[in-house]
């Protein structure tokens, strides 16, 4: 997958060269992360070739979401010139190809794939330099992408995490602490179990409950009010400034 058409057509050419020696079948090529997910839901594959730098969703983020598939594929990254990515690949022993791609190198990488497994989430987290643009969740056999800009709040509940958007709710399996770290600029912690999008905060209100008064967050787009814990009351002051 690559967002640039010539790069995809070149990959086809090189793969055709490899096909003479390796038995391989090309499931298709796509220009965006979303399209890649759709294709892989329909046609499970053993390996995907991913360009790193792409609009909307970079290759590393896509690799994250691919892990949610029933049969996650092995991943080979491709990049033209990206000092940071290359360093990260070396450090984490991730297979990658340099563009322009040579048939010989591709053949080697594909031969190794037969024994390779999908990347581990920890490795991908290491590689991720910018926060992911989406959260993903498997619902009814499909991978649902939730753009992070749509998220109003994240709330930890027992094993799962509720992702609340204006349109609805999703349950994902991720750690609240890790998300807080990843999206430090976007979200603010109002409670031990809750992160709220700064942009969605409309204001604060004092309410009384069981004879005790405490602050709640008013959100734009949804009626629900979220309690602010005593420990996080400084947030109210920061926002009222």
């Amino acid at each position, binding site marked *: 997958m690559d*967002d*640039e*058409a*010539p*790069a995809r*057509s*070149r990959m086809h*050419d090189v793969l055709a060269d490899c096909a003479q020696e390796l038995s391989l079948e090309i499931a298709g090529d796509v220009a*965006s992360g979303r399209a890649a997910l759709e294709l892989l839901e329909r046609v499970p594959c053993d390996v995907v070739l991913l360009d790193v*730098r792409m*609009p*909307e969703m970079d290759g590393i983020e896509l690799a994250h979401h691919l892990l949610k598939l029933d049969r996650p594929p092995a991943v080979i990254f491709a990049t*033209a*010139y*990206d000092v940071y990515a290359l360093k990260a690949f070396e450090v984490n022993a991730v297979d990658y190809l*340099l*563009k*322009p*791609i040579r048939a010989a190198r591709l053949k080697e990488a594909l031969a190794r794939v037969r024994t390779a497994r999908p990347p581990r989430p920890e490795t991908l987290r290491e590689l991720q330099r*910018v926060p992911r643009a989406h959260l993903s969740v498997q619902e009814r056999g499909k991978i649902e992408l939730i753009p992070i800009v749509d998220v109003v709040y994240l709330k930890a509940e027992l094993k799962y995490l509720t992702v609340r958007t204006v349109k609805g709710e999703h349950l994902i399996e991720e750690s609240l602490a890790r998300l807080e770290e990843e999206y430090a600029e976007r979200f603010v912690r109002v409670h031990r179990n809750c992160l709220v999008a700064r942009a969605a905060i409309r204001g604060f209100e004092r309410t009384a409950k069981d004879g005790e008064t405490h602050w709640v967050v008013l959100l734009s787009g949804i009626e629900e009010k979220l309690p602010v814990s005593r420990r996080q009351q400084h947030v109210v002051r920061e926002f009222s400034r």
Partner: protein
Amino acid sequence: MARSINQNAYSGALPNFRNLGIALRIVVIVNVMALAAAIVQAKDLRLLWSVLLESSAIVQPLLILSLFALVALNDLLKRLPYYLGVLAVLAIELVLTTLLYTFGQPLLDADPAPLTRYWVLVALATGTLLLYFDLRGRALSPAFTEARLQALQARIRPHFLFNSINAVLSLIRQNPKRAEGALEDMADLFRVLMADNRSLSSLAREVNLCRQYLELEQLRLGDRLQVEWHIDNMPADALVPPLVLQPLLENAVYHGIEPRVEPGVVSINVYSARGQVHAVLRNPYRQEGDHHAGNKMALANIRERLQLHFDAEATLDTRIGDDTYQVHIAMPYVKGSDS
């Protein structure tokens, strides 16, 4: 206007006295010197004003006369070797001082100091100014900034180079004709990128370079990159620093087009107005952009080169609109004889 700033092994050069920035600097520095002298002379700070006025009676006319003389003789002085040029400027100043001393008696005190005293003062002031301009020239000389420039060029270009090679490779089997054209464009582009880019080049050449660059980018990005040219009123013969627009377009593509899925427009508007050449580049802009360091470096580089060539007469402004990013360059319209 100096056509070239060949100062690889910097050997000193007189400043361009026709440049507004240079003239302003002379006026400010001379007046600061006069003020300093007045502070030293005045026994009481309350007397400062009257001492300053007294000295101004000779300083200001001399300053104005000198500026006119230097502007008039600028081309002649430029042609002399540096040390002869310095001597000539000193001579001009001393002659002007003598003339003013002889014919301007009414301006001076009833009891003027001897002429030799004025000579020494004028020679000191002129020497200081020339030394300042020499040091400034050295500090701004390309030899000094070259290392930085190179480090900067290595930042963005590899990305473009490898992606373009990849795009050309993809064409070789299916469309050899287009691949040929693309390689020719690349050769032209890299010839300029690797050339000695210290002399000014024509605007027409720069615009042509930009076209070749954008064609290569279009090869890879297809419809995602849309280009609007508004160059009907472009002064094609104007002299501009080479590679003043192309790096900005590279930024526009890298930050404005590549991070988007949907097509975006890069617009280039070049025109002349009131003796100035204006270039306005616009590209789509999204708020949550990453790599901004690279962009700032390229801008700083271009700003520095503009300053080196045109001093205070050139400006570079950037503006972030609703969802566009705009760079506006204004520089003096210097006509080139060849183009």
